[in-house]
Structures are given as structure tokens and as C-alpha cells.
């Protein structure tokens, strides 16, 4: 990533960023505290979109971008939360206790109070609302929904490799 810093007399400071994917973003910090971000088109000539943040907004966004607010885990774990109810994508780790068992055998619903919404098989095949006979295999991504606490417990107990081998 290349960053170029230029002073704009009477306005503020400009940072021109060209990312590794050759995308151009310009950040302007105004003397009055406003920040503007411009995103440029592929030949870097014209800005295609821009946003303006005030000082406190920019600080919050900086914290988000800097990973201070939410730390991205592995790419497979993406969470969506609706007041207590959460949906989670989780890739079953090799060596997890649930591998080779059916959903009915584990009895996810009564043991954890969690519903398996879908199973994404390794070859991108989708099983939507899988029945009790569906088998969980290593490398599957399971989409589960329930209370956050319950999800954590289920993931920890049967979807991850607790022994660490």
C-alpha cells in the first residue's frame, strides 16, 4: 500500500492511498475537524463516491477499522445478532466430537436449545433445514441459531477440536 501525504493550504491535510489491489482512496482531514473519504474509479481520475464524517464519527470509524471495537476472528465466523438471538456460521474443525454423527444423535435441539439452519458441505452443496438424519462431516460449515451463550457452548463442546490435535 502506498500513502502520499500532501498539505492543502487553507483547507487541511490530504492522504492519498493506493492499495495493493490498485484502488485509490483519498482521505482529507479538514482544519475544522471534518474528514472526507473519496473513492476513485479504476483509472484514478475521478472520485466515484465520497463520505463525510465529523470528528467524533471519524474516531469511532477509526476504532472499527483499527480492530479496537470488534476483532475479526477466523474468516468463517461471521456473526449476526438480534437482541439475544444470534446466527453463526462455523466451520467444523477436524477432530471435533460431532464429526460422523447425525444431528439426531447429537440431539442439538434438546441438549443445547439450538437449531441447525443449514449445513454447507465442502463442495459448496447446501443442505437447508437439515433433518435429524443429516451427518456432520469435517470441513462442513454449519449455520446455527440460538442464544449466544448456547451457541458458544455448542461450538466449544462439539464443533471445535478441544484436545487441540
Amino acid at each position, binding site marked *: 500500500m502506498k500513502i502520499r501525504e500532501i498539505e492543502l493550504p487553507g*483547507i*487541511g491535510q490530504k492522504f492519498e492511498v493506493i492499495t495493493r489491489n490498485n484502488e485509490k482512496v483519498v482521505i482529507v482531514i479538514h482544519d475544522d475537524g471534518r474528514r*472526507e473519504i473519496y473513492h476513485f474509479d479504476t483509472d484514478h*481520475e475521478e472520485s466515484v463516491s*465520497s463520505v463525510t464524517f465529523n470528528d467524533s464519527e471519524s474516531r469511532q470509524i477509526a476504532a472499527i477499522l483499527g480492530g479496537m471495537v470488534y476483532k475479526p476472528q477466523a474468516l468463517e465466523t461471521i456473526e449476526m445478532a438480534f437482541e439475544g438471538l444470534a446466527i453463526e456460521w462455523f466451520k467444523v474443525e477436524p477432530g471435533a466430537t460431532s464429526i460422523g454423527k447425525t444431528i439426531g444423535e447429537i440431539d442439538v435441539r434438546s441438549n443445547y436449545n439450538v437449531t441447525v439452519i443449514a449445513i454447507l458441505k465442502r463442495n459448496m452443496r447446501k443442505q437447508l433445514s437439515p433433518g435429524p438424519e443429516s451427518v456432520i462431516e469435517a470441513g462442513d460449515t454449519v449455520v446455527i441459531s440460538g442464544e449466544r451463550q448456547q451457541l458458544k457452548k455448542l461450538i466449544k463442546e462439539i464443533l471445535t477440536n478441544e484436545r487441540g490435535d
Partner: protein
Amino acid sequence: MDHLVLEVGTALVLVAIAALLAGKFNFSIIPFLIILGMLVGPHAPKFAVIDLRFIESEEIISFLGRIGVLFLLFYLGLEFSIKKLIKSGRSIFTGGTIYILINFGLGLLYAWIMGFPLLEILIIAGIITISSSAIVAKVLVDLRRTGNKETELILGIIMFEDIFLAVYLSVVSGLVLGNAASLMGALTSILIALGYMLLFFIVARKATPILNRLLDISSNEIFIIVVFASLFFIAGFSETIHVAEAIGALLLGLVFSETEHSDRIEQLVVPFRDFFGAIFFFSFGLSIDPFTLGGAIWLTLGAVILTILGNFIAGMIAGRRAGLSHKASTNIGLTIVSRGEFSIIMANLGIAGGLMPVLKPFSALYVLILAILGPLLTRESKNIYKFLDKTFKWSQKTSKVRDPASG
């Protein structure tokens, strides 16, 4: 009965209304205040206690306006920095030089062809050359162009112009206010002005540590008193040796810009500059009889056309030399074309020196047109580019260069 405060208060209410209107239309307040000033004045009616003629208060309003000039130029001096210019790089230096050569040259030529005497030629060329930093910065921010490539070059040229203005104002003020009757007298006046300037440069370089200590005042109250005392005293003193008081303010700003307190002074001065500056534009309009505008109309229109052409061409050359596209280069000329505060200050200097009175309606009309037309041209630069592109076929030429196989 003494209605002085009421009269000044009325003036300020009008100024506030004009400023609010300008804000509503998202325009610079400068043209609004000049028009307002011209509308009122000795020919305006009087309603009971509200006197729109401003006869009694004319003197004090123009004095407040004079303070506005001091603050405008003091601030210019504070912002001014040779270090910044050197750091800014070659393309800005060449761009600025090209701009000044073309536009100052055209200004001199135009005033000379129109048959003005030397001093008037110098003032008119100055009025035509200097863009309005305030309007340009505002337009760039409003149109969200601060991130564009050409913006660096535009602001660089503006900075270059400001430096040119500082030196030029000093020299011309020496000529206009000093003894310009004989060649020797003129030379002495220029030398005094330049010597005075040099003195301030030396102080700025050598005496910075002493000034740092002197200005190291923790109380805001005492700090502001000390800064303003030096500003008014130095500005007034400069007048006694035929250097315009505005130049004194500018030079003091320059000295203070070298100290470590420059940011604090800048923050302190901005509200004063805005307030007294507004009164200056109003009082400038007030001093103009709108019926004299007609006499200057052709002179002004010629200058406006010349300015637009000169700025456009200079922007095009500067932009292309800096490696920008035709489109970005079009933006340069169409942005720096706005005129405002500095053109009026230039004209004011001529008036103060007792030059031809036509300078006043000329500069007022000129600034009015370009303070309104300039931002419009900037806003429409895309369409203007498209139109010009059809005539000159720039985009086709560029694509041919990029892909020689097809040509």
C-alpha cells in the same frame, strides 16, 4: 441626539441579513455585502429612527472596515510561509510562475491599451491577477473536490499568488503612497518599501527565539492585548513611512508566523478577520455610488473576459505540464478565476493614494461579476470540459497516444 450606536447596529443587522442570504444560496458573502453597501448610503431613504443613509456613522463604519483590512492581511501573513512553498515542489512553482506571467502580463497590457497612467496600470494589473483565496477554498470544499488531483496544484497556485501579492502590494504601496513624481522619488519609495520588508524578514529569521519568549503568555486576555497592540501600532507606524498600513499588518503576520505561537494567534484572529472583514466589504460598497457603475461597465466586461481567458489558459498549461489530464487541467483555470477580497484591497490602495476614481466602480463591478461567475464556472467545469472537448478533441488524442497500434 446621537444615534451612532443605532446606526452602526443597523448596518450590522443589514450585514447579518446579507450574510444569512449568502449562506442560504451557498455563495461567498463578499458580493452580497458589496451590493448591500451600494444599495444603502446617502441616496437611501430614512425611516423614522432607522437611517439607511449612514451619514453620521460613515466615518466609523469605514474605520471598522479599515481594521478589517488589517486583519485580512495579518492573517495572510500568518499563513504565508516560504518553507511551505519550497516544500511544495516544482510543478507548483512552474504553475504559479506561468499563472502570474500570463495574467499579470495581460493585466498590464489591458490597462495600458485602455490608456491609463502608470500607477493606475499597476493597480489594475494587480486587481486582475490575484484570485480570492477565500472563495476558491470554499468552492473546493463545497463541491467536494478537495480529494481531486488538480486541487493540490490549484491551492499551490493560490499560495504562490499570495506571496506575489505580498511583495507586489509592498512595492506598489511604496509607489502610490510615496513620492512618485520623479524617477528618483519613485526609486526611493520602492527601496524604502523593500528595505522595510527586508527588515521584517530579518526580524522573522533572527529574532524568533526572543519573540517566542515575549509571546509566551499563558493568559489569553493578556496575549490578545499584546498581539493586537503590536498589530495596530506597527500597521499605523508603517503609514508614516509611506508603506500602506495593510502591508505593516501583513509583514507583522509574517514575523509571527515564524514563532511557535503562530497557531494560537491564527485561531485568535480568525473571528476578528471574519467580522471586521465583513464590515470592510460592506463599507467598500457603501463608498460606491451605484450610479457611477455604468461608466465602468465596458472596461469591466473587457477585464472579466480577459481574466477568464487568461486563467483558463494558464490553468491548462500548468495542469498539462504537471502531468494532469485535460479534464483536470480545465478545472484549474475555472476554479482560480474567482476574485474577491484581495482585488478590493488592491483597489482600495489606489483610492487611498488618490488615483483615478474610476478604479472604485471598476473594481466593485469586476469583483461582483467574478465572485458570482467564478464559482458558477467551477461548478459547471464538467460541462465546459465536454463542450471544449468536442471542439478540440482532447480525449481522442489522449486515447491515441495510449494505444498507438490503433492510430
